[in-house]
Structures are given as structure tokens and as C-alpha cells.
């Protein structure tokens, strides 16, 4: 029945994961997105997560705003402080500032594979870009994908993920972290 190759499906999955880490707004963080997420959890048989998300959503007055506040607090600016800026170089191989050495290495990797960021001033090591790039590699260069995961993505994502899992108030980002982890870990 499956007409797509696993690589193509992985590309879609990475795109989906990248999307789920963008700032939530009504344009995409809508019922369609939600039903895909819930179905994905269903397919994975992550019943507890599915149940928790469904329950929290049903109990919320403004679910979108809740997730926006959580996104801002975790990833942008917050009190007591931004929990986990979604950039590799804040967590890995540097002194905690943006555009550290790993960001430059990541940019170089994109270049070597024949890609550049559309907006040049953007930081290359944002998690959304890295997941989007994994989607590109999934289609075109599985070996490159492995290398990217091993040398550039997983080392910082591990640290980032634990910060988010520890500090998240909202189940949405916990679930997203686990999904990213699940789909980017070495072969299970």
C-alpha cells in the first residue's frame, strides 16, 4: 500500500517537525495541523501523550495563546530567563552566545551540500532550519543526513531537549521534543 519510499516520508516528517517548532500562529497552528499531530501520535501509539494533549486543549480557553506564551517563554525572552534559545551555539561548543563556532560549521555544511539560507542574515543553527535541512537531505543525500545528525544536530539537541523537557509548562513542547528525538536518534 505504501507508495512512498521511507526517505520521502522522513522528508515530510522533518518538515512537519520543523513546522511544529515555528512560532505558532493561527495560520498554521490550526485544526488541520492539530489533527495530523494527533494522528501521528496515534500511529506511533503514543496514547498517553495524545490523551494529555487532547485534555489540555479541551480545557483551555485560548489554546493558541497558551502555546504562544509557552513558545515565547521557552525560546524567545522570558522571566526568569529564556529557557532554551533554539540555536545550537547557545548550548554547544561556545560561550553561550549566538553565532558561535557550531553555527559557522553548520552554515558551511549547508554550503557544501549546495544550499544557503534564503535570508542571509538569519542564524543557520536555528532548530527549524536544521530540521528543514534534514528534510532536504532525507530526499537527496541519506549519507549526508547521517553525518549532519551525528556531528551537528544531535550533540546540541540532546542538551536543548533536556532543558525544554525539564522546564516546559505545556505538554505541546514536551511532545514535540520527544517526536524530534524519536525521529532523529540513531537507528532504533
Amino acid at each position, binding site marked *: 500500500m505504501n507508495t512512498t519510499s521511507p526517505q520521502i516520508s522522513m522528508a515530510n516528517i522533518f518538515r512537519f517537525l520543523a513546522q511544529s517548532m*515555528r512560532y505558532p500562529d493561527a495560520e498554521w497552528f490550526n485544526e488541520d495541523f492539530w489533527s495530523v499531530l494527533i*494522528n501521528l501520535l496515534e500511529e506511533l501509539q503514543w496514547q498517553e*501523550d495524545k490523551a494529555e494533549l487532547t485534555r489540555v486543549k479541551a480545557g483551555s480557553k485560548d489554546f493558541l495563546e497558551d502555546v504562544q*506564551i509557552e513558545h515565547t517563554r521557552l525560546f*524567545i525572552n522570558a*522571566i526568569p530567563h529564556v529557557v532554551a534559545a533554539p540555536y545550537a551555539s547557545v548550548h554547544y561548543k561556545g560561550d553561550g*552566545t549566538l*553565532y558561535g563556532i557550531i553555527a559557522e560549521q553548520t552554515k558551511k555544511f549547508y554550503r557544501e551540500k549546495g544550499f544557503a539560507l534564503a535570508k542571509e542574515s538569519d542564524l543557520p543553527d536555528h532548530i527549524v532550519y536544521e530540521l528543514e535541512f534534514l528534510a532536504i537531505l532525507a530526499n537527496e543525500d541519506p549519507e549526508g543526513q547521517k553525518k549532519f545528525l551525528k556531528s551537528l544536530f544531535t550533540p546540541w539537541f540532546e542538551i536543548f531537549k533536556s532543558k525544554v523537557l525539564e522546564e516546559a509548562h505545556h505538554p505541546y513542547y514536551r511532545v514535540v521534543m520527544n517526536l524530534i528525538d524519536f525521529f532523529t536518534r540513531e537507528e532504533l
Partner: protein
Amino acid sequence: MSFKVTRRKFLQTASIAAATLPLAKVVSAETGFVRDPFTPPGSFEGTQTVTGGVCEMCFWRCQLVGKVRDKKLVKLEGNPKSIDNGKSICARGNAGIKLLYDPDRLKFPLKNVGERGKPVWKQISWQEALDECGSKLKAVQEKYGSQGIAMFPHGASAKYPMDFFEKVVGTHNVSEASFFQCRGIRDSAYMSTFGVAPGESVDMPNAKAILLIGCHFGENVHVSHVKAYLKGLENGAKLIVVDPRYSASAAKSDIWVQIKPGTDTAFLLAIMNYLVQKDKYDKEFVEAHCVGFEEFKKGISHASLDWAAKICDVPAKQIQEVAELLAANAPNVSIHPGRHVSWHGNDFQRIRAHACLTALLGAIGVKGGFVKAKGVKVKGISWPKVAEGGEEHNLKLMADKYHFAPPGTPTELIRDACITGKPYPIKGCVVWGQNPMQTIPNQQRMVDSLKQMDFVMCVDVMPTDITMYADILLPEACYLERYDYIKTGTQWNFADKHQQYIAPRMPLVDAMFERKDEVFITNEIAKRMGYGDKIPVNTLEEKINKELAGVNLSIAQLKKEDGIHIQDGKDPYGVSEDFEVQLYNEDLEDNDYPAVPTYIPVEEVPKGFTRLVYGRSPVHTFNRSQNNVWLHNAMPVNPVWLNDEIAKKMGLQEGDEVSLVNSEGVKSSSKTVVKVTPGIRKDTVYMAHGYGSRNPMLTVGVNAGVDDQELITKMTIDPETGCNGMRNNFVKLVKDGKTLDIPA
């Protein structure tokens, strides 16, 4: 979580078909990538030098170049073409990179969906943020009048919005507190004496003697100014430093006057009286340029050396020695006007004394004296003055006090109106690049002022203490990411060839995230408040280009000239015939202020306490740089300097951790360490300002050291200017929860 399905299994299941999981349909069409054929290393890995930077880690504005590698700024250096700072920049200038790439910096517009002071932030679009700012400010204006809006601006980027609120919206309630509390008194006092604001215009490289009252160069670092000072010393100038503390400058001095804080005016009066009595003043200059010499002479005649010695707690002989040294080297003496001068609430008179002493020595327009550089003027382009209403709601005039206040409205009058609603309510607040929580004493009054507002917006580069009180918080591009201020000046040493320079700030890298500049933000708010037709320029770049056109230059031309245009300059020496010095000032008399410099005693230190004074750290620009990783590591806390004999009596040792409590019972929120030293008076403790932020958004700076500002709760207000004296607070040290009395 129990993983029921492995990834491999999941990917192989049939149900991954698009019908069940239409993943592709719920993601955005575009990714952040474009195809870019790989160019081998070498062509893009080289480091480029980008010119046109103008530093703003402090406000000296040294000219920079940026080393940019693949769009990343990797290093800042002085622009080798600069005739000001040259190739040199200071530690803070270097650390600008860490501000640029600080992950705690503001990135997107934020809306506070929690309370002021306890914010819950939500990222919103610029559209929504600007709509909210425009409509809320308009609502305040309609309900309470334009005067119902107060503004606290600071820095080059705040000038354009400040002009909008003053000239177009029409509020007088603009308080550039940091200028007001810093150089404001100095400028007013010199205006009332020389008719010009002094800047730091002393010709130190060519001086035979330099007098610094409280200035602590070396700790206070402004590159070309420090160069000038050091050149003077290198050329053999004698240095007199008046300071209760053995500062970096005191360490280089020929005479260190360890004065009792607050008494400097008495010291200066005694010197002037001595010069007059002993006929050691410049009679020719006084006759030609000074007004009211006889009144002045009479007004200071009580100031004998012994009188001052007693007040200042220094030997009469030492005061005499200083007077003799100045007289011997006159007129080539630099009496430094000071910079941050609001100390004790008697400061206008002290600064007038600086100016009068300069005149008595004839040290104006001569080598080594007070000499204004002849720079080039570039006319600014800004909002037209269209607001009506005149001075009707001017709090300063309504209060009929502080007649010699620097421009703007004294912060205290704004806060009074906010808190009491009288003479009218102030319900809208715009904070732009300023942190009035730390720049103005008595933080609770600031909190009370903000809490009663209908709307508060802040624009800043970093989160600061004040931004926690914003309803809408907007992220501004920093000085490395935008066009801005046009810096002009001359070569730093007047002994060198006379030259002028023009250096507009140009971006070294593109602005990241959704940061915007002041012209965009102000114009968009103006449109939403109904003033779209008054907009003078559409972009910041257009503004700079129009301003440069006034001197036949353009951004394109400046780029060709490596960021700095240099042209022939003019000899700055000489004094015009009509230059007048008001030794005795009638306007002051008319407004019931002392017309001749007068010493006004300050409160004595109560038993068991010590006086808290503060100054600069060479690696920080107050709270602006608190969160900078490099600078923080260079000096993570601000030790409290304690006299060694006092420390011994108290059983305190170098490095002991302490907090502080002031005479009004206010405790510091954080701790610092003790520095035990003979280099401070027994009745005084000192710490560097700009530490111990309580804003948890500053992940590096939060609670690092003690915030002296928190302890400055007692207000002394300078009667002429309305500025707050900030060195009249008394403290005790607290160790292990025990409050320790300070022995006499």
C-alpha cells in the same frame, strides 16, 4: 513514555500514506533554504573589513571597523582612518560583539499578557504591536491631553522619537534622566557662567597642570579622552586629583586630595579666595571677560584655607599647595568640568566653581586650558514643530522651581504628577533605551508611576529592569546593525595638524530577527496617531543621506572614504572679544539662588553608618553592559571598598561576602565582596555602579554584585536644576545575616 512502535516499523507501515497523515499539507510551502551552488572554500571564507561602524557601548562613539566572515561579525577594531580614537578601542568596545550575539537580546515584538512588573510575554507581529501602541497612546492623548504622555528617552536612537513626542504630539514631559542625572547640571552651570556647555573641552595634552575633581580616568574610559589625559601626563603635566578614594587617576597624581565627600565646593572656594587675596589670578583676563568680579570677591571672601580645611577634612597646607601649583602653571591648566556630576544636591554651585576657577586662572582659549574644538556642524533632520499649546502644561514652569534645569522636565516632577495625579494625570509612558529604574533614585516611585499608567511601551535592545513594566516591548536594532548618529569632531590633540571629521554610523551587519530602527517604529506609531502627514523621512538611511547632503556628502561617498570623511580644520585657540564669564550671575540672583558660587553643606554621616559613593568600572557602561559575557567575566562583581582600619575593627577581611542596608532600612537584593584598602576614607565606602540587576531576563548580569542604585533612596535635589544628588545615602554592611555598625 513507552514507545510502542519503532521508527523503522513506523516508516514501513502502510498507514503512513498521505491520506492518514497529510504532513505535507500542514507545513508552509517555503523552507528557509535556497539552492546555492557550492563555491570552494577560499572565496567565501575570507574575512572582510567593513568600515563605518560607530561604537555605542558607551556614548563616546569611537569609530570602528568590523571584521566580517561569511556575514558573521567576528571582531571589532578601531578604524585606522580615525583621527579620534584611531586604531584603539576599549574593552567594552571590543565586547560589542557579545551584545550583538547575546541570546537574551530582544528579538521580536512582545506583548505582556501578565501584569506590569510580573510580565508574561507573548510574541506578536509588528502590525499588532504598532496598532496597539498607536491606539493606546492616542486614547491617552484624547482623554488626558498630550501632556498625559511621558517619555524617558536615552541614546542616539531616542532623539527622533523624542522629537516626535515633543514637537508633534506636544508633551513637555520628556525626561532624558540619564543626561539629566549625568551631565545636565554641568552643562547648565557652565551655560550660566560661560554661556556654553563645556563638553569635556579641556586641552589636557598641552596642559602644564590638570585638576580632576572626582574624575577617575582609567576606570572611566573614553578612548580619545584618556589618550588626551595620558598625553598630558607624558608631556609632564602636574596632576591634582580630588577624590575620597585612591582611584586609578589618584594613583598617577602629584597631589591627591582625599577630600570628605560633598565638600568640594568649599575646597574650590578656598582656592579661588586664596588666588584673589594673594593677587595670583589673571587680572587681564578677568578685566577683559569677567562680569561681577567685586561681588564675586566679596561672596567668597569668607573661604579661608582654614575654613575649607575644616569642612573638607584635608590640611590647609595641601589646599594652599594646590592653589600655588595651579597659579604657577596658569594659564595652561585644565580644570576638568567633570562628566557625571549629580552627587550631593549642591552640585550646580560646585560646577559653577569649576568654571569660575578656570576663568580666574585665565585658562580659556589657551594651550592646556578650556578650549572648544572647532568641529563641523551637520544639521539634523527631524520632526517639524507643529504642536500647539505653548508652555501651558510645562510642569517645570508650573512648579516655578528648578529654573536652571537642563532641557526637558525634571524626572521628579513627572513622577510627582504620575503618583498624585496633580497638577494633571500622566497615563501613557514611552521608554526608549533608558532604564529609569536604575538611572533615577527611589525605585518604588518609578514602580508606582508606571503601575498607574493606562499604557506603557518600551523600545530597547536588551531586556532591562524597566522593560518588565512594559505592556508592549519592541526590539530595536543595535548600533552595529543600523544607520544612525553622525559623529563629528576634530583630531584629539590640538598640537597636531588641525583636521575635522564626519563619520555617520553605518551597519556592519544586517539586523537579525525582527529588530527595527527608530525611524520605522516612530513613523508607524505616528501614522496610527494621525500624524502621518508630518513624517519628515521614510527611512533612517534617507535621514542620514539628507543630513549628509547638507555638507555635500552621502552614504555612498562615505563608503568610498572608508567610513570617515576628513577635511582641513581650524585652529581652536583664542577667545572672542565678547566672551563673557559670569562670576556673579544676576539671573541666579533674580531667582533667589546664590549668584556667586556657594558651598551648601551636606548631611553628616549618622553614627554607625558610612557614606555610599559609586563610580565607573572600566569594563562596564553601567547597566547597559551587565549582561555581556566578556565584560562580566572581566569583572563579575563590584567589590565594596572599605577602609582597612575600619575593616579590622569590624572583623572583616578581603573577599568576605556582604550585603548592604541603608539608613532607611532598604536592603540590597544581592551580595558582593569586601575589598579592604587604605585607599578609601574611613567615613566612605565605594562601589562601581551598574551591577546587581534584578531582571532575571539578564541571565549573566542578574544578581551579580550589588546594585548601588537600589540603596539610593534618600533624595537630595539640586535646587537650581532639580537633579537628584545620589551620594547622600548611608549604609551598614551585613555579614551572615548580622548587620554590622561602622565604627567611627
